[in-house]
């Protein structure tokens, strides 16, 4: 129960613990250094409890403003907030406490004097600096955990993408149809049969050997060419493709298999929605410092329907995987869209400020 609440509100819990500790220390400190008359102890404890209660809204304010400052990513803002809380916080805290004491008739009246502020400030600064420090420690610990989780997630997604590619290659339809095609080619065109064997070997080698998070555009496109050559041998004039790639982009590294998955989807869904001829187009270009990868196919968007899809070797269409990995590597600096217009389905990935 408690651990669940802690996971939901780690900041609040940590700060509350510090607040309780500080109040306890103050009560003990008071009693030990200035032993009061026995009747007054309960009053003193009550006074400090008021201080604790007065601290709660300030605690919320502190949490809220620190989070806000972190969002703005401004160091100056954070530092000024720490100073503001350290110097003004104690005074506000004291005023609220005194006010509470007056309401509950522990104190007759009070006036805010400079003397009062001066007296409470040293401990108040420690008090609020402790709270700020606790906030910071909680924040960095959460960041660390988040980072670890994100890395772990990216690794899982990369493995998943490789598995999806393997699934497709080992997909019986692709493999046996290609073998069947090879069977016919051995009689019809020995040269072409040999080419197909080489294409298949190179295509398989790429995904079976690579287990990297990222790969160069050159590598990825080379594999895609092999894959399209194999499909072209199978579908002959029913399939045509075009690859437009600016050679200077070859060395740029991108998450592996992302374009391959898009091309594979374009063929798989394109074949289903084209009665006559299927055209595939891959375009990779740099536009105002933004890398644009666009995969288009003739036909219509078909949404995968798991209930109707009898093919147990396909597991979704890989789009979630693509989005997940792009978001890990490029955070908010990417976009991924799928559009249909004029008989073409186009999937576009845009990545801003990518490094070569």
């Amino acid at each position, binding site marked *: 129960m408690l651990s669940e609440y802690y996971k939901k509100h780690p900041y609040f819990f940590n700060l509350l613990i510090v607040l309780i500790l500080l109040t306890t220390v103050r009560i003990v400190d008071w009693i030990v250094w200035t032993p009061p008359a026995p009747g007054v102890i309960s009053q003193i404890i009550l006074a400090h409890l008021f201080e604790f209660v007065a601290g709660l809204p300030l605690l919320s304010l502190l949490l809220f403003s620190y989070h806000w400052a972190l969002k703005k990513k401004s160091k100056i803002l954070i530092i000024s907030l720490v100073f503001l809380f350290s110097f003004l916080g104690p005074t506000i805290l004291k005023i609220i406490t005194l006010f509470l004491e007056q309401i509950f008739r522990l104190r007759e009246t009070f006036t805010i004097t400079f003397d009062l502020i001066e007296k409470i400030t040293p401990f108040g600064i420690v008090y609020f600096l402790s709270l700020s420090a606790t906030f910071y420690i909680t924040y960095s610990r959460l960041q660390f955990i988040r980072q670890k989780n994100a890395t772990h997630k990216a690794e899982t997604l990369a493995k998943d993408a490789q598995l999806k590619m393997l699934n497709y290659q080992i997909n019986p339809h692709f493999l046996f149809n290609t073998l069947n095609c090879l069977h016919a080619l051995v009689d019809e065109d020995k040269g072409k049969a040999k080419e197909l064997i080489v294409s298949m070997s190179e295509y398989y080698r790429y995904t079976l050997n690579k287990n990297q998070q990222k790969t160069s555009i050159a590598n990825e496109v080379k594999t895609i060419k092999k894959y399209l050559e194999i499909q072209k041998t199978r579908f002959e004039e*029913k399939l045509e493709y075009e690859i437009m790639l600016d050679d200077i982009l070859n060395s740029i590294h991108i998450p592996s298999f992302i374009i391959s998955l898009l091309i594979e989807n374009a063929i798989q869904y394109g074949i289903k929605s084209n009665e006559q001829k299927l055209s595939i187009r891959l375009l990779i270009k740099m536009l105002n410092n933004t890398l644009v990868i666009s995969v288009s196919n003739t036909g219509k968007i078909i949404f995968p329907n798991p209930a109707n899809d009898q093919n147990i070797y396909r597991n979704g269409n890989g789009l979630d995987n693509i989005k997940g990995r792009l978001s890990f590597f490029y955070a908010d600096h990417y976009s991924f869209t799928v559009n249909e217009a004029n008989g073409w389905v186009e999937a576009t990935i845009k990545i801003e400020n990518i490094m070569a």
Partner: protein
Amino acid sequence: MTKLKAVIVDDERLARVNLKKLLEKHPEIEIIGEVDSCDHTLEIIHQCTPDIIFLDIQLNGETGFDLLEKIDNTIRVIFVTAYDEYAIKAFEENATDYLLKPVNPQRLKLTLSRIIKYDI
């Protein structure tokens, strides 16, 4: 003995070539046509009633099952496909046999001899 009239339906030309070559070794079979879509198959069925259809399941935008609904069930349908995931469904739809690509010549021989022997 009258020859059995056969039609090959597959959207990949090389797949049709493959099957044609194998069937040419069987004198009891006469290939009266090879087509690449459901519509063309229906046309050929109307022109000359075949005895056997060798049918692939994935046909561009359509499937072999779409075709089954539109044809007379006296025509024997033999599915020829890359993988066996549709086998049970094929037999439910009254398929005569189910062959896997690349087709094993011995297996094809068995299919044809059964058809002739038991007239199924």
